């Protein structure tokens, strides 16, 4: 082979070598760009317009100003916060208790663990339907059981009273997602080595001291992962509320996601819905940054 040609062959081989990883990345990046980057700019565009069948008109910051003075938006935001805080508290208390229970010496651990997966693996719509059956004031088993205990349940409606309905929706989320918290925490507990426990035993620490000074600090990474993922899911809660109450009675259980859904697809006010979604995006964006930073710290360690 002439030296000249050999050189150009090497160069083309080098070029192909360099381009190879980008060719591998291209399909994924194109798909993501088409269905997340483009929609993101589209939503920015929509948020400063009013969409009517005739076309769209530029309205400037009007949608955002309206958002600032909209009591229903605030109400949905506050309720989303209440849902998130109360569901997180219960899910972590119960999930940690379950994880500690199944991490201790107990028979049939694998079976219980498998059965406890069920609520989180079934379609959220089916979870909603199941609890509509449970909560039914007439023939539901919840009121049925209370009547067996001698209580008068005639005025006890789980989804029709504003305050009770809020608690009922939280309970369904706790039912669905405590198993998630439990699984992550159980994995975290089982990853803790035996040595620190032995050291604590030699030091003569009480069970509570051992939990407080050994278990909890070593469980912290798993706790944080579960916390961030659950928070992210809760601030966008939609499916189960849609099935259980559709945000009612009145607006008692309306979440931000439901509010945006109704604005866009019941009232066809797309510009205003876009503005409200951007507000939600700011919150979840901050959370996802936290989560990713946390993941990176793991990577570096």
């Amino acid at each position: 082979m002439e030296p000249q040609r050999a050189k150009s062959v090497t160069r083309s081989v080098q070029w192909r070598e360099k381009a190879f990883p980008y060719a591998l990345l291209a399909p994924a990046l194109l798909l993501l760009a088409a269905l997340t980057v483009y929609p993101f700019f589209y939503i920015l565009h929509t948020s400063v317009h009013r969409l009517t069948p005739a076309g769209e008109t530029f309205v400037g910051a009007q949608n955002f100003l309206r958002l600032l003075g909209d009591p229903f938006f605030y109400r949905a935001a506050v309720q989303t916060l209440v849902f998130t805080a109360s569901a997180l508290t219960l899910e972590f208390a119960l999930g940690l208790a379950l994880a500690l229970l199944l991490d201790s010496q107990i028979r049939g651990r694998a079976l219980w663990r498998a059965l406890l997966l069920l609520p989180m693996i079934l379609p959220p719509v089916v979870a909603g339907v199941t609890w509509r059956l449970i909560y039914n004031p007439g023939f539901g088993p919840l009121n049925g059981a209370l009547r067996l205990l001698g209580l008068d349940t005639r005025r006890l409606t789980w989804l029709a009273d504003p305050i009770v309905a809020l608690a009922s929706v939280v309970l369904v989320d706790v039912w669905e997602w405590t198993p998630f918290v439990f699984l992550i925490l159980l994995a975290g507990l089982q990853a803790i080595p035996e040595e620190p426990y032995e050291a604590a035993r030699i030091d003569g620490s009480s069970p509570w001291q051992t939990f407080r000074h050994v278990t909890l600090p070593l469980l912290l990474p798993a706790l944080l992962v579960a916390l961030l993922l659950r928070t992210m899911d809760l601030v966008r809660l939609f499916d189960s509320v849609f099935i259980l109450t559709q945000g009612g009675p009145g607006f008692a259980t309306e979440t931000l996601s439901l509010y945006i859904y109704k604005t866009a697809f019941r009232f066809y006010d797309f510009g205003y819905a876009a503005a409200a979604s951007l507000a939600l995006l700011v919150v979840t964006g901050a959370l996802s940054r936290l989560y990713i930073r946390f993941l990176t710290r793991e990577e570096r360690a």
Partner: protein
Amino acid sequence: MRRRAATFGKYALLAVFLLFFLFPLYWLVLTSVKTQAEQFASPPVWWPRSFTTDYYAGLFQSTTGWLAFNSLLVAAGSTLVALAAGTLAAYALSRFRLPWRLNQRLGHWILSTRMFPPIVSIVPLFLIMRGLDLVDTRAALVAAYSVFNLPFVVWMMKGFFDELPRELEEAALVDGDSRFGAFRRIILPLVRPGLAATAIFCMIVAWNEFLFALILTQTEGALTLPVGIANQVTQYEIRWGAMSAAGVVAMTPMFVFALAVQRHLVRGLSFGAVKG
């Protein structure tokens, strides 16, 4: 004595937990095989006198079969697309050192798209699909779910690739394989279990998804099972038996799938952050 009391307390607590988490599902299954009279009985019938399979038989005569078929098609199609594109990207991020810290930056950006709230993406997605005349098609859902699952595939598969030693490909390259040949012949077969687990996770997510399907589909040519079930709840008169039967049909395959990936479950649920 005190020890025995503690053991007893432990099992009692476990029983309470199991009752809370499993009784609702028992009730769903029970409602799907109860006769109508016993469904509406007060006090509730905790264990029926007679069972009926009418509601399951009825599913075959209704549109539910079609909806399940749509769900299956959409879940399988989107899983294939996400798996193909995501695995290639994961391999690139795992094995090649790109300039400008692109490995990290792209990895984080891809993950951050998954954190996008669905309700935020659905408004523009609906307008775009309407513009393309794709509303109420299965193709629209396949596209939406592929992208939804893509970041998950990238992160899961990157984890599996990272666990394989680099010497494997180097040996193949020395033997005269091309880069892609080394990937296809040596690496891909080794990550097959991870690939299967990731695929099953994608199937579960796509099969269970509700919001996108609610907005992007309208008729039985594209409606999925969750939307079909939801439509029954929001009707004036709810047919509890048929709805429960459909619910059982929708959840059973997912449980089988979840058992199949139990070993990878924690890793999948936490996007690879916690290794189970």
